[in-house]
């Protein structure tokens, strides 16, 4: 039997076997996150809030830019404003920043972030909303002894837009 034939047989067997298992009534609702490590802290941003991720490109310095705005860059073919996510969260920036992350809330805005630490699928029950959201951090996920702050892309963008409203250099 050739390689593909063997693969097909294994798939058919697994398919048939699935019918012999008891049905599960406990399907778990989950949410997917991209986890970023910024200055030693872990932050998660929901995948459904992300419009795109791409390798960092040249950033053009923009005089009179708002705080933490690093300048302009070609973000997926658009003229995008690039913000230092670490700076926005009150942490020092680092040269490990390698990606532009776009949120669905404003595709003309990209956050400069390090490469993702990992991809995380979390049952909703493990996401603990903040009773009083502090800035852009709206919830926490516990992973053993580690806590991961959940960021709201929408709140990050609206805070930046609020700062830019009527701003005169």
């Amino acid at each position, binding site marked *: 039997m050739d390689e593909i034939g063997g693969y097909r047989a294994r798939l058919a067997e697994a398919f048939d076997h699935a019918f012999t298992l008891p049905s599960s009534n406990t399907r778990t609702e989950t949410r997917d996150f991209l986890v970023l490590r910024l200055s030693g802290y872990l932050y998660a941003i929901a995948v459904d809030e992300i419009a795109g991720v791409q390798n960092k*490109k*040249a950033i*053009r*310095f*923009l*005089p*009179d*830019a*708002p705080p933490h*705005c690093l*300048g*302009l*860059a*070609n973000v*997926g*073919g*658009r*003229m*995008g*404003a690039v*913000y230092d996510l670490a700076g926005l969260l009150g942490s020092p920036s680092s040269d490990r920043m390698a990606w532009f992350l776009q949120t669905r809330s*404003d595709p*003309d*805005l990209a956050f400069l972030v390090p490469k993702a630490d990992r991809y995380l699928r979390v049952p909703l029950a493990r996401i603990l909303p903040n009773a009083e959201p502090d800035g852009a951090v709206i919830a926490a996920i516990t992973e053993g002894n580690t806590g991961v702050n959940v960021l709201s892309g929408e709140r990050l*963008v609206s805070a*930046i*837009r609020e700062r*830019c409203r009527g*701003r*005169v*250099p």
Partner: protein
Amino acid sequence: MKDESARYFQLEARELTGQLEAGLLAYEKRPEALLELFRFAHTLKGGARVVNHHAIVDLAHAMEDVFAHHREAGTHLTKQELMELLSLVDAVRSELNGESAGALGIASPEHAAPSPRDLATVRVDLSDMDVLAGGIHEAESLATGLRLELRTQGELQEAGISAELAQRMAEKARRLTTLADSLELALRRLGRKMNVLRLFDASLAFAELERATYDAAALTGKSVSFTARGGGVKLDGHVLSPLRGALQHLVRNAVAHGIEHGAVRTERGKSATGRVQLLVERRGARIAFVVKDDGAGIDLAAVRQAAAQRGLAVNGADGMDMIFQPGVSTANGVSALAGRGVGLDAVRAVVRKLKGTIEVRSELGSGSTFEIVVPVSLSAMRALVVGIGSQRVLVPLDRVVSTVRLSQTNSAVRSDGRVLLHDDAALPLHDLHSWLDPRAERNEPRIAVVLETSQGRAAFVADALAGTRDITVRSLPYCAGDSALVLGAAFDAQGDPELVLDPDAISASSRRAMQVDAVTLVKPRRILVVDDSLTTRMLEQSILEGAGYEVDLASCAHEALEKAMQNEYGLIVTDIEMPGMNGYDFTVEIRRRPKLRAIPVIMVSSLGSEESRKRGADVGSSAYIVKGEFDQDGFLRVVREWLG
């Protein structure tokens, strides 16, 4: 189906009203057009009946009656009838505008579809064209990115893959690169074509200008002819659209203020019919609209008197510029056309917004000429690539008068900065270096770029010139804020952004800086002292207050920046070693911000090395005092040097 009919009727009715209006305006020159006009009215009535638009049926019927009467009698339309017919055309337009979304069941008249009578052309909303053009430029930029990514595929060979696979991948990459190149080229061609499609023929404005002249003549009881030349000259719809209103104002003004009544003209040896002429001509990347009348000309003495009555100082060499001041009018009374003094200032505001210029020439008794010069497009343009420090910026080429290599014979340093001696004038040289590239080492400026702006000539210094390039200017994203001197940004050949400078803003900023200098020379000065040491703050405060200065204190650079942005200071005294932002970075921030960059900064620090002093000078400090050598008299002497 009903919606479709209504939509087509909207398009057809708009075309027919345009043809009716043009035909009526030209009637006196072409009375044989009567049958054609009758046909237009008849077609309009038929269409309106199909969609049950009874108001338009009645209006078209009324027009038809007038045309039919003269057709049968073989007589001509009278002036009075022409006026009434034009009013009926206006009424049809009002119906079309007012009921288009209701009775006709149309969501938006602007979202047009092909006319059923002429499927060779389509009407497209300008904003839809903008979206399409933006999409093409975006795709072009993505194709550039793809090409660049493919060039780096060679790195894969170093990642340990087999030589055969690497060779195959290299071959694929070569083919893909060729395709990406072709795609980029095709998109670039498409972008250029799209830019051409977005251009409108200037003659689109002619009919309404003729109508404006006709209406104004009828209202004032004058006899005036209107002629236009330059149809075929094309410009961006975003430029032509606002300009139409400004031009209408100028022709109405020419009739109301310029052209004399027939009897007066005859007395003065002129033809009883006055003339208003419009000439449109292309001048490089700009277009000139020249509105000329053969009327009485502008009475400068009356303009000066009107300005004086409003308490305005006469400016400009001859005071002609005063006619653009709000509220200045020489009309004897207020009419529907003129006399409120709220026109030419609005015309100038429109022209300035379009990055254009307006000039007026007039000869008493002979007439006036207004010349508006605007760019062909606000987004597609040719730009001069300029190097300032390590940055490259773009300047609209049509605003560049010249570039000059600086030398001791053509530039001088005055107390208020460096100036360029150019065409018998001393132009202040705007230095953008610390604003654009605050951390780079500053070299002696080598080149001056002289600009034509809406406020006259201005100049800035540059380190290098790198040729010219066709660009498409994009607005800055909302979250980038407003950058004072930046018009927008464009992508370079590698797909990276480059800033496009705004010549008008550079000129205005230069003038503001000079005004600030002039004002601060006579104002009492406040000093901001920045030091994290309470003792030093108190010491410096007591010395300065003892010498009669007002003093504010800040314990860190961030607090100081906040205070400096909120208040007016004549001088800043700062420490260097402070927690958070140090004194060097603080000075860089001061030099970067337009509001603060003119404020002298004195550094007072315990760092006494030559290197520290040099770094202080490099970031833009005005003076450097070492704490170990600090003495009250020396400190005050330096302060007085900078504050007077």
